[in-house]
Structure formats: C-alpha cells, structure tokens
C-alpha cells in the first residue's frame, strides 16, 4: 500500500477550507511524534558523528591536562607517595628558580627568535629563487625536500657528529683552511649554534616549499603592471609579493613559533641541555624534573607553566601578525 498525505494536509495544500476531524487530529499528533522521532534520530546521528572526536578530546586532551594539573598541585615524587595537597607551591618553586629565569626562559625565547628569523628569511629567499624556470628545477625541488624526510632526532645525531671536534667534517674543514678546531659542544653559545643550525637545516625547506606553492599561484598582472610603471625588483618584492605572501607566511611563522618553543628532540640528542644545563629549554627542563629527578609534581607544573607562557606568547604573536597582514593588504 502506497503512502499518501492525510486529508488535512491535502486540504491545506490545495487551499480548500477544512475542518479538523478527530481523525485528522490523531494524524497530526502522529506526524508531530514522527517529526520528534526524526529529530531525535537526527540528534542521535549527530551525536554519533561527534562522539568519537569528543571522546578523543576528553581522553587524550582534557583528562591528561587535568591529571597533570592535579599532580602539579600535590606532592608527587617517585619516593614520596603521600600525595599531599600543596596548592600552587610547585609553581612558586619554579618561579623562584634562578636557573629557570636565568637560563631556561632566555634560551627558549632566544632560540625561538633566532630560529624563526633564519628559517623565515632563508625560506623566502629559497622560494623566490626556485620560483623560476631553470635546468634541473625538479631535481633541486626534490633535494630540497630531503631534510623534511629526516626525523629530528636523526638530524640531531647527524649534526652532533658533523660538529664533533675529533671526527666531524666541520672541524676538519676549519683546520684545512687554517683555523683551529672549535670544541662546539663544550661551550654554551657554540653548542646553541649547533642546535640552531640543525633546526634551520631541518625546517627551512618546509618554509620554502609552502611559500613556493603560494608564489606559484600569485597573479602575474600586478607584478607586470608594477614593472611597466618602472618598479625595480625590491619594490616589486616589498610592495606586491610580500603582502601577497603574508597570510601564508603568518600561518607558517605561527606554527613554527610553537614548534620552536617546545623544541626537544634535536637538543636532547645534541647536548641533552648541557654543558652544565646551559642549553636547556622549557621542554628539557620539564623532562629533567619529571624523568631524571623523578619529581613528577614539578615536572607537570613546568609543562603547564610552559603551556601558559606559550599560549600568551601565541596570542600576542597571532594578533601582531594579523595586524601586519591587514596593513600589508590595505597597502596592496
């Protein structure tokens, strides 16, 4: 038996006057119930779709952070199972630690700033150089991708041997051209330079590839018009290309800022934060507190404090970049 509209509905559709009988009311109630049922089903379906993501968020994001926070406000150490509530004592301990303020924070910000500047500048230069036709273009682009295929810890091992004073190619080269061998990993600033160089080597291609992709879809008309008007290369770059690249550049810089801020693997492999804790970053500090000293409370407090600093820093960066992007667009 086929389905048909109830009388009342047919009447409404045809515009005919009608009077609702008891039968019609029943049918309407049924329809309403059906609608509700449908709505319920739709809601259930929606929840079904959201639930996996929601559960993932709860179990892998919210619960670990909550657990870390709980640990950070209790005394939790390998040998002390008392779990006494200590409030914000652990956070205060960190804020009073001269090593944290004198070395860890400056190192983290300095590394983030230098790394970001070099990677961005080199990335833009490489992208501009590659955005033209030349022989071996494909090969160069493939080679450019090579560092991206290397795991950060492997790059750490690679660079620690490259800069090894006895066996490293860098010192052999320096000696060959008449310089002394440099004990790279024995001083704070030389060791920090090795970490920065290794990070720049690893991540500059990432910048270059993304910026190159943006450059390749850049409309040529404004550039040609500017050239006809007599603009030179640097004027074209600063007034047309750079504003055009700024949204992509902003996102790239934001992502890399967070990455640099929480850098761990290369530093751990190259210096483990040494010599004498002089190249320690946020992440290494938290790791040492947690795993090396087995002070889980302080380790968690350091991680959460780092996350808060990173969040504040991220918001400032985002707003600054957004403002720059807007003004560049307006200029353009």
């Amino acid at each position: 038996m086929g389905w048909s509209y109830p009388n009342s509905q047919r009447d409404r559709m045809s515009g005919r006057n009608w009077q609702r009988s008891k039968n019609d009311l029943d049918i309407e109630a049924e329809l309403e119930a059906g609608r509700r049922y449908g709505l319920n089903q739709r809601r259930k379906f929606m929840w079904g779709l959201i639930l996996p993501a929601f559960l993932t968020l709860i179990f892998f994001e919210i619960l670990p952070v909550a657990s870390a926070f709980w640990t950070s406000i209790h005394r939790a150490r390998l040998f002390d199972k008392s779990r006494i509530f200590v409030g914000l004592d652990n956070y205060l301990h960190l804020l009073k630690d001269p090593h944290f303020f004198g070395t860890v924070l400056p190192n983290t910000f300095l590394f983030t700033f230098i790394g970001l500047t070099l990677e961005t500048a080199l990335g833009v230069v490489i992208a501009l150089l590659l955005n033209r036709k030349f022989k071996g273009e494909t090969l160069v682009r493939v080679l450019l991708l090579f560092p991206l295929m290397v795991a950060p810890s492997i790059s750490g091992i690679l660079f620690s041997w490259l800069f090894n004073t006895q066996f490293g190619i860098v010192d052999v080269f320096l000696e060959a051209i008449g310089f002394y061998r440099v004990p790279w990993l024995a001083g704070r600033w030389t060791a920090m330079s090795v970490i920065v160089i290794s990070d720049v080597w690893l991540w500059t291609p990432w910048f270059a590839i993304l910026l190159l992709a943006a450059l390749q879809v850049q409309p040529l008309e404004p550039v040609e018009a500017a050239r006809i008007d007599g603009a030179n290369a640097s004027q074209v770059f600063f007034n047309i290309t750079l504003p055009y690249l700024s949204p992509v550049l902003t996102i790239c810089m934001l992502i890399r800022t967070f990455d640099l801020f929480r850098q761990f693997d290369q530093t751990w492999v190259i210096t483990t934060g040494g010599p004498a804790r002089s190249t320690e970053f946020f992440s290494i500090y938290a790791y040492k507190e947690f795993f090396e000293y087995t002070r889980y409370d302080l380790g968690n407090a350091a991680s959460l404090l780092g996350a808060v600093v990173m969040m504040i820093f991220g918001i400032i960066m985002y707003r600054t970049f957004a403002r720059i992007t807007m003004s560049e667009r307006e200029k353009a």
Partner: protein
Amino acid sequence: MKKLWFIVLILFCLAVWAGPAGAKVKIRVVYQPFTIHNQQVKWMQEWAKKNPDVEIEPVPLAYELYYPKVSTAIQSPKCEYDIVWHNDDWGMAWIDFMEPVDDVENFKRIPRHLWDVFWADKKHPRASAVPFIGTSAGMFYRKDLITTPPKTWKDVEAVSLKLMKEGKVKFGYVGGVKYPHAYFTLLAWMWANQGDILAPPFERDKEVLAKNGWKPFVTDVTMIEALEFWWDQIHKTKTVPADFVGYTRTAAMAIFQAGDCAMFGEDALKYGDVNDPAKSKVAGKVAFTSFPSGPHGKGPLSWDVPWGWGIPKNIPEENKKAAKRVIGYVISDEVQLDMWKTTGGIPVTTDLREQLSKTDPLFREFAVATYKAPVLVMSAGYYPEWPQVHSIWNDYCIKALMGDKKDIKKVMAQCEEELKKVFKK
C-alpha cells in the same frame, strides 16, 4: 547428530591449540643494548629453547631513556616487563617495587657485597635483584706504548705529555664526562683522592648519612684537587680533547679505538669491544689497570658493584616463577664463563672468580686491577635522591671546568647549596 560431532571436533581442536599456548609464559626482558646485556639475553633465549614453556621477548631500550621509562613501568598497575636490568645505583629507588629474588638458583654463591646494594635497608632484608656481573672499572691503556701502568695522577699527566710529544697519540686520556657518563673521569678521580659527594666520604649507609644531615662534601680539597686536575688537562696541558666536557663514554671509546689516545677510563666489561679487531685499531695492544691515585688518595682505585636482573612486583605470579628460573640460569658457570671470555665481564660467583684467578692469567690481571684493587668504593649513592644528586653534582663540575680555574671553589660552593636543597623536606 552430525552438527553435534562437528561442534565437539571444533572444541577439541581449540583445546589442543589453546592448551600449550596458554601454558607458555612470555617473559619480556628490558635492558640497555650493551654488549654484556646482549650476551645475557642471548643465553636467556638459548635457555628458552630447552624450556618450551617459557618464551623470551627481548626489549632493548636506550640507556638515556632506561631509568625514567622503567621507573614508570614498575609503578604502573601492571608492569609491561617481567625481567628488568637493575643497576646498583637504582637499588633504593626501586626497592618497593621489586620482588625478593634471593631464592633463585645459584644466588647463594654470590658474595654479599654484590647484592647488598640492591636492598641496603633494614626494612627490606631480602635482595631485590640478582647480580649478573661485577661492573668493575679502571683504565684501559696501550701496552705497546706504556710499559708501567700509571699509578698516580702525576703519572697519567707525565705519560700523556710524553706520548703526545713523541707524536704517538693525539691525547693522553679519554672518558665520559657529561651526565651520566662521568664515572670514569670526574667520579673516579674524586674517589681516588678520598673525596665524595656527601660526607663522610665512602659512607653508603643512608642512616649514617641522614644522621650527618646529608652534608655535601663537594667543597673539600679532595674534590677541588680533582677538578683542578681536569681543568689543567683541558685548558693547560691539553692532554684531553678540547670538548671533553661534552664527552659520553661512547665518544671516548671511539677515540681510543681509533688509536688516538693512550688511556681510556671504562668498565672492564668493555674489554671485548676495545680488543675486537673488527671494531678497534688497538686490538691486541690493550691492558687494564686501576684508576690512578690522587694527592690525598690511598692507592689505585676501582669498584666492584653489580648490575643485576630484577623482577617487578606488579606482574603475574607465574611470570615471576618463570623469570626466577631464567635468572638462575644466567648466573650459572656456563653463562658466566662465556660472559668473561666474550666480553671481559667479571663473573659474580665467588668460587668461579677464585677458580679463574688460578687458571686464567688475563683474569688475574683484571682481578688485581678491579675487585682486588688497593682502594674499593661503592660507586654510587644508595639513597633515593641519588639520580638527582648525581646529575646536579655533574652539571656543577662541568660548569667549574668551563670557567676560570680560580672560580672552581666558588662554583662548588653553589653546588653545595643546590645539593642541600635536595634533602630539604
């Protein structure tokens, strides 16, 4: 009826298949992939071939990650490992989480000082790990270049300078310096000068240390002299590489194996590696001696402390039983003899040590340099805070070596303050 027979047949097949599989106990062994551990695990697997009810699954873990990772595992509701490599310096940290193991086969043949460090606490009168090797350290030296092994720091410096001047080697001495590799440089030199991190020196009873207020000893002349020695070697005489403060034991061994250095501080158990022609240019030219004595020292120094196998409490009972059988086997004469012959590792059982001393001249040389050395030290702090104390002390020593020589005492005074904070409740 046919259907019923079919079901019975399936159930029978399942029972046959599940029977032996269910009875087989899988033992997961976690260790750092070091020559000596590899040898032990190889024999565990050999044993499992003859004992089909047990299966061995090796889980190698990097040294730098080992302690934090396994510390977390043994505290979890169920440990993922059944046998864990246990270092003497973690005895205190892990004691509450480890199964008593002094009932394993062959355990009674091990001298008490080797397993004492795995409990060393009146609350825990039973050993919490079975020693499988005596990790005795000292110096490997080039016997083709050095006829009389150096006995004092002065000898080490003099021999180094002479050989470097003659162009025979690039450096006099190498060893690990950065944390946790400084046993063969900073720690050995401090102990060889009768120094220590906490007072009274060489005391390992934590009750005595506690009674003494966990007082640091790092500003004592014994410590300062040791650091001044290394400062001179790095900055003045240059008998060690310029980037010495960043050295791991692996980096140090690479230089010695390359033939660039005359002396190399390490555990005796590395003899197999430095004497392997496939890995080392100096194979066949290597001898072993104790660490040289400092100005306040009482003679050449070594230590005779164990590495052991432990069984976590938080694993099933049947796994504990199987794990004890496996461990009992790897301290048997068969395995211990193979360990000595293939790696240079000193066996743990008293009677086997005595037997080898009588019959094997090379072992006699190693015995004199290690567990029979004039001065023996327990080469760690056997209290829960040791990893932290060790790391802080090591970092400050490196800081002192990187700065001016006249500031060494000042840096170590800062170290003293930091160490005091560790014990402040």
